[in-house]
């Protein structure tokens, strides 16, 4: 059973409009993003900066846990986990 990555609506144009992408063999959050970026290359720049760190205006939740409060991109994942991408939005 893979890890399920939830893609928010603003980023779905970069994932062929998929709202959820199943990622296999992702032991950490960073590995899941790497695999996701391999399949959808345009996504990488939206999530990670030049140094490979999570951008400051994007957050990730492993199930219900903010990964910044865990081990960031090193946070361990197991099969069946849900990884939710939460982008900052500002419209009003």
């Amino acid at each position: 059973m893979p890890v399920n990555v939830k893609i928010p609506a603003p980023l779905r144009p970069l994932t062929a409009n998929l709202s959820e992408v199943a990622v296999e063999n992702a032991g950490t959050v960073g590995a899941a993003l790497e695999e996701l970026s391999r399949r959808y290359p345009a996504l990488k720049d939206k999530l990670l900066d030049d140094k490979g760190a999570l951008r400051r205006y994007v957050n990730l939740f492993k199930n219900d846990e903010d990964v910044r409060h865990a081990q960031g991109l090193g946070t361990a994942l197991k099969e069946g986990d849900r990884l939710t991408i939460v982008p900052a939005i500002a419209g009003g």
Partner: protein
Amino acid sequence: MKTAVLLGAGGLGCPAALALRDEARARGLSLQLVIVDDDRIDGSNLSRQILYTAAEVGLPKAEVAARKLGAVARVARFDASTAAALLAGADVVLDGTDNFEARFRANDEAVARRLPLVHGAALGWTGQLLTILPGRTACLRCLFEGPPPEGSVPACAEAGVLSPLCGLVGAAMARAAMQVLLGAAEAGVLSRWDALRGTERPLAVKRDPSCAACGRVAS
């Protein structure tokens, strides 16, 4: 008498102000609503900025909205030089502004003054809401460390925003502000809407002890 300060009388601010004013009236709660916006009504606003009509295009949003709701108008830009005056006396602040700079400023100024803040945002099909009780619950910078560089994330002016979603998020902002005023805030939880699918799981947001805005605000 309670005072609510609304920053931004646009797509979120219009339904939020209307619902908050009416709910306060229905409950017999004496509420002064202060509406802050330096923008003027544009014809392209009318589908979602429900307080305005075509005949009012070109008029200041804050003045028109305040006149219709019995509120106080502040035709002013919310920035470092005006924040203190605009937020004076607030029991709750509602942020319905339309750009990252204003949103992080609203967060930082409200946190510095320990004012409860209802942050609502919408873009395209996506909506978010976070109630912030400074010193007690996570602020916007605990969730996102800072704004993106200008131009890297579309603003609503470029990406648009679904009009019915503005009604949903704006009404939720009014509900959240009323909860603050009644001492029953549901803070520290990020509510999310995906208007393509309905609501999404709320996410608990924890305080970041090293947060640049609220890390030094005592509990």
